[in-house]
């Protein structure tokens, strides 16, 4: 019998990328544990991490290329599949133009380079249409922060005197972030959690502020007003390094504690109290904004309002504040400078220019309309890797309809997902344990690399996949590297670090030690070079220059037909977005989706835990079992459904066409719904 082999790598079961030990026996991954020396997780690994074993060995993993013939799947030779796909892409390009092809990147299979490779490929074949899950997750916050400070800084929890976790549940969403948050608390810091639900994180909060969904901007402005009034602000920072303070302060004036109470449901005195607690801890205040702030009609401005607090407190780029990591000069794979294609009209860039300006992201929600209406131009083909929009994009019915309407739909996947089922070709992908990729940890200013640990013959890794297609499409010069080893070396070239060095540093190679207050020497990456309380750039695009607050529709214009407000997307322990539902063990633990409901609402509806209800929005309906949560867990009238359950897919009822006007983010976290108990049909 072969001896157990031991590899050190990084986890990709969520976006935390913890250091892991991977044990292999007879060519099979048998165990995964936390890597003690890793800078991020210090040996701790959540149960999702261990599930990597289930992922790589899953009996239902796709191992053979499949081609749809009629309603059947037929196994097909891998190279022939590439040939056929390339032929079909060429045909689309010839008939409808290069931009009729779209490229879509999901996040399930790779690390740092997977995104840039997909972007590179799109441009290499002449299409500006790069899509990803990011246009409805993460990027909203990134843009919100970048508009204010030129980047989204990283929280330095461990040294904070006051940490504010706002709309995020790290224990489930970014598990090992919890360690540093609580380290900060152990060091004497205060923990404030602002959330719609009493989340896992909130259980340890010194102050838990339960807020109505989508009203965060009002609170942020209210805090700003109070901080200014109490003179708990950093005059030095405001005076020296910011733009538009007066206009912003003026705007915030209207947000008296009483008004904030009316908007957010938070008692006025608590607003004052929290402001003082935050202000007194300045500048070591660490405010972390989570996904809960996106997915609202006024999401970006709410995020901006929160981002502005960093400037008021002078906590930006401070130890114990939100610090701005220094980058490592990795070579970029994108072709935006080399081969800009904005003139071809990337989908969504007309409606949401900020999204494209900041992130070169096309808008996936608009893509569905484009496919269905051929407006502004036909989008006929899509190559999608490691994503499941049929389950995770809003308005699933429309998504399915659109993806079905494509002339060519290629999905590269680990499993036969709801999306893969719609494809013409399904190619098996390699997992994160099956290839070598780079990854940076900005918080630690370190970089790591994953080794190729096991392989399966027809499961190509990202680079190989794009390279093989590019070579068949006359774009081989953009993909010159023999394999990903060569590619990794090329990416690292300007850093002076070699691949070998990285393998010698499984704990994460620290490329630079941290420095604070860099703004004293360098400008902020904003149009004014300063921290922008107001944005002239946004004004130029016709938006408000201050982070204005617009109340969510369910508050400002309540529709009696839809009396409940539904939040979606709270993370659950075993699941990362749409993933892991096919692992039996996970189903033992959390077998099905649920709608979380306040006992008061449950009583009114006459339902109890386990009863099925029909939840209906203006988009559609979904049937789902109820979980009645404790009183303190959620506010009456507010409900929550986690996405990713195909049996009770909440995205059947989320909005793809009610968007934040700035970044186009869909309305998924303050959805107006009605709820009806699903009764057994009479007479049956």
């Amino acid at each position, binding site marked *: 019998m072969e001896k157990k082999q031991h590899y050190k790598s990084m986890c990709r079961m969520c976006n935390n990328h913890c250091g892991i030990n991977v044990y292999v026996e007879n060519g099979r991954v048998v165990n995964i544990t936390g890597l003690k020396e890793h800078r991020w997780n210090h040996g*701790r690994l959540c149960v999702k991490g261990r599930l990597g074993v289930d992922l790589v060995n899953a009996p239902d993993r796709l191992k053979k290329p499949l081609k749809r013939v009629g309603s059947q799947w037929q196994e097909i030779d891998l190279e022939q599949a590439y040939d056929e796909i390339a032929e079909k892409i060429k045909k689309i390009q010839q008939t409808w133009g290069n931009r009729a092809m779209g490229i879509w990147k999901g996040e399930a299979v790779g690390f740092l380079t997977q995104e840039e490779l997909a972007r590179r490929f799109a441009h290499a074949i002449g299409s500006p249409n790069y899509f990803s899950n990011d246009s409805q997750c993460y990027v909203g916050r990134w843009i919100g922060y970048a508009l204010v400070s030129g980047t989204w800084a990283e929280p330095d929890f461990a040294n904070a005197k006051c940490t504010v976790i706002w709309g995020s549940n790290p224990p489930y969403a970014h598990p090992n972030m919890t360690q540093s948050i609580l380290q900060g608390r152990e060091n004497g810091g205060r923990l404030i959690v602002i959330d719609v639900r009493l989340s896992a*994180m909130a*259980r*340890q909060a010194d102050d838990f502020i339960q807020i109505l969904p989508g009203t965060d901007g009002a609170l942020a402005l209210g805090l700003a007003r109070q901080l200014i009034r109490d003179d708990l602000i950093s005059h030095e920072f405001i005076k020296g390094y910011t733009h538009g303070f007066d206009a912003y302060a003026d705007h915030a004036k209207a947000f008296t504690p009483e008004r904030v109470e009316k908007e957010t449901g938070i008692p006025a005195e608590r607003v004052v109290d929290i402001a003082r607690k935050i202000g007194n801890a300045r500048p070591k205040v660490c405010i972390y904004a989570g996904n809960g702030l996106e997915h609202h009609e006024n999401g970006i401005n709410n995020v901006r309002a929160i981002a502005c607090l960093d400037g008021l407190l002078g906590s930006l780029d401070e130890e114990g504040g939100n610090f701005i990591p220094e980058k490592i000069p990795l070579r970029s794979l994108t072709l935006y400078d080399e081969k800009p294609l904005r003139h071809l009209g990337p989908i969504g860039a007309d409606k949401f220019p900020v999204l494209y300006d900041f992130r070169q992201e096309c808008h996936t929600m608009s893509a569905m309309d484009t496919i269905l209406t051929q407006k502004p131009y036909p989008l006929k083909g899509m190559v999608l890797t490691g994503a499941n929009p049929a389950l995770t994009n809003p308005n699933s019915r429309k998504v399915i309809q659109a993806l079905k309407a494509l002339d060519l739909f290629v999905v590269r996947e680990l499993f036969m997902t709801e999306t893969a089922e719609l494809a013409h070709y399904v190619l098996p992908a390699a997992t994160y344990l099956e290839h070598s990729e780079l990854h940076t940890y900005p918080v630690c200013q370190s970089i790591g690399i994953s080794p190729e640990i096991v392989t399966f013959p027809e499961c190509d890794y990202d680079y190989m996949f794009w390279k093989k297609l590019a070579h068949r499409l006359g774009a081989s010069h953009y993909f010159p590297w023999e394999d990903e080893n060569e590619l990794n070396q090329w990416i690292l070239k300007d850093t002076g670090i070699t691949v070998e060095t990285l393998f010698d540093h499984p704990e994460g190679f620290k490329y630079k030690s941290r420095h604070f207050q860099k703004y004293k020497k360098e400008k902020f990456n904003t149009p004014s070079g300063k921290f922008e309380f107001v944005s002239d750039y946004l004004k130029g695009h016709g938006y408000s220059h201050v982070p204005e607050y617009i109340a969510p529709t369910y508050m400002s214009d309540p529709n009696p037909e839809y009396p409940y407000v539904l939040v979606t997307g709270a993370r659950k322990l075993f699941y990362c977005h749409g993933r892991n539902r096919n692992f039996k*063990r996970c189903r033992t633990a959390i077998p099905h989706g649920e709608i979380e409901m306040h006992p008061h609402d449950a009583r009114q509806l006459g339902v109890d835990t386990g009863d099925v209800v029909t939840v209906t929005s203006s988009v559609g309906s979904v049937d789902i079992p109820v979980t009645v949560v404790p009183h303190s867990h959620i506010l009456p009238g507010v409900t929550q459904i986690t996405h990713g359950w195909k049996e009770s897919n909440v995205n059947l009822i989320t909005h793809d066409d009610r968007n934040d006007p700035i970044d186009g983010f869909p309305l998924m976290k303050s959805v107006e719904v009605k709820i009806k108990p699903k009764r057994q049909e009479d007479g049956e």
Partner: protein
Amino acid sequence: MRFITMDIKKCVVCRNCEYACSFQHTGDFNRADSNIRVAYHDDIKICLPQTCMHCEDAWCMEICPAAAITKNEETGAVEIDSGRCAGCKMCILACPFGNIHFDKSNLISRKCNLCKGEPQCVAACISGALQYVTAGDSCRNNREIFQRFMATLHTPL
């Protein structure tokens, strides 16, 4: 001697530990099979992870009428020998912390055995609440700590 400490100021009741424990000895994620139990007391905001303290002169070990409970010399773990346990539940009654559970499929008691010195609950604890620690000067004898604890009980919180 090493044992697991539980920091109630860090636990977030995420239940990674419970599932890791269940996985370790059943291969499945079933909370009921876990030897570590985490409770959240909503009204008093207490997050309470509970697993065996591997007491010195352990109550459970003393009481077991089947001599099924012993101290593992190497790891210091108080362990139940499943081959000897008769399932009488005396140990469950004896433990002053509620740290012994009943294995409903084999009808015997079960408890933490420190996973041969690599406790999986600690490895999965993402908050840092669980630590696998080496006994220090003031913490050598759990019975002593228990007495100290008993003394504090007379003073209201």
